[in-house]
């Protein structure tokens, strides 16, 4: 580090060094162990809030889900910035105006990034690793991807830039949900 101390600054620094010795910092906080609870040394109350939600899909995602049920991916185009967006939205957040038209996209794309996940959210080991990925969808603008899973592929075979294709649920099992695509598999 290049530091040019001129006289006065050096002085201030010395003073602070001195005061540090006289001022001993004391940090509070007591660490507990799991055994403290098992041995009932510490009392703890448990409660599980009973909350349940029903999310309305809205205009853009409502249509998107209806199209998924038909085995199609759809996006929205803004004629001003010319972006074709997926997931679709009814407004363009860049131009900040309503966007203009629905555009059908291919049900394939390119792996933008991926992970091979071996644990669940509560850190339990998974039987089979999951391969989440961001998939840039063909027909949409560059970098327009969605989150989904990869399947029918060995984890170590997955590469960024890999071309993949949606594997759909059978038509009578689709329910208008993102999971109507079971996963994407390499082409």
């Amino acid at each position, binding site marked *: 580090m290049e530091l040019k101390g001129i006289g006065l600054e050096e002085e*201030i620094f010395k003073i602070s060094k001195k005061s540090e010795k006289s001022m001993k910092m004391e940090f509070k906080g007591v660490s507990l162990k799991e055994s403290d609870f098992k041995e009932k040394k510490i009392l703890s109350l448990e409660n599980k809030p009973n909350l349940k939600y029903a999310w309305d899909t809205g205009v853009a995602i409502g249509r998107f889900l209806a199209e998924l049920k038909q085995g199609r991916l759809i996006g929205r185009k803004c004629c001003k910035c010319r972006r074709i967006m997926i997931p679709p939205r009814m407004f363009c957040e860049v131009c900040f105006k309503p966007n203009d038209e629905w555009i059908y996209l291919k049900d394939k794309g390119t792996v933008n990034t991926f992970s091979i996940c071996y644990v669940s959210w509560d850190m339990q080991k998974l039987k089979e690793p999951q391969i989440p990925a*961001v998939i840039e969808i063909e027909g949409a603008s560059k970098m327009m991807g969605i989150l989904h899973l990869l399947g029918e592929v060995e984890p170590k075979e997955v590469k960024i830039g890999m071309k993949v294709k949606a594997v759909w649920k059978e038509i009578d099992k689709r329910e208008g949900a993102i999971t109507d695509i079971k996963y994407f598999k390499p082409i």
Partner: protein
Amino acid sequence: MRKVAVVGAGLTKFVRRSLETGKELSYEASKMALDSCGLTLKDIDCVVFGSAPDAFDGMHMKGEYMLDGSGGFRKPYMRSYVGGGTGVFTPIQGWYHIASGLFDSCLVVCEEKMSTLRPHPQGAFLTIFDHTLERPLEPNLLWIFALEMNRYMHEHGLSKKDIALVSVKNKKNALDHPCALLAQEITVEDVLNSEVLAWPVQRLDVSPITDGAGALVLVSEEKAKQITDKPVWIEGVGWNLETSYWTNRDLYYPKQVEYAARMAYEMAGIKDPRKEINIVEPYDPFDYKELHHLEGLLFCKKGEAPKLTREGVTKRDGDLPVCPSGGLLGVGNPIAAAGLMKICEIFWQLRGEAGARQVPGTPKRGLAQAWGDLMQVGTVIILGR
């Protein structure tokens, strides 16, 4: 805008599970900060409080619930929350309370007690994903870090070895921090051999679940001169948010951090951060994040932060000490309090009060940065003496 000084700082120990409640942790940090500059609550005009999701505590409106522990009772009080960015954003709010001329003193308190949530605090993060398009895929928080880390590594052709050096450095630095939860001497091999959680993320790439609190006393220039002969000035602040359509942007680079940094640099009159800033405390909840953020903060070109680390530039006695505190990887990661810990560190370093962690020379200026939400927010503070 008026000048604003930091004149006092307080921190609790960072622990996996604290005996103290969030309110009690807030009190301990607040009291320490006030005592450190010889003030009492009577001298404080207003209070700002930062804490991450209410879901950690199962207490809706936890800002209001914690109020008494953070000295906010019968005062102008507000709570802020921008995910992981909170610990640096809350003092920014304190700053504009005073810079605006509305108040002369402000107590800034950041608290997190993550351990309350059962069976695992990660449960709170499951609700950050889009309810319709993402949650049915059962994502967990590790995914977004793994996806970002992989994209970053791919773009620059980085190896995990390059990145592991950050974990080794920070955990070692934390050995000198009296509040540290996960201070350890480890090797790159230890990191590379640790359990793979979500490739490329392994166990030792990640900071721990933590309870803790921190606090700062901010005052106007006039007050600062009455209180101390070594005020630390807030020279610049910046914050910025990226789109919540996170699958629509390239995760290899944190643009929002750059925008936040540029805002702060302009305010502080900084042209070349690498030459004009002596200490950096970038947000490091995962080891690659320190590198990602050093690049976003414009301390080096994109993809070159691993080189700085490899060459020892970012060691505590290097040319640009980075996370001399030990960071989130070593000291711990009680979300909001973790960001504030970084500001405490810069404050103590600039005053020469960092003890065994003191960087060599007489540092004049330091930067603390945090990051969070759905990989969205960047928050930056520049302190100088």
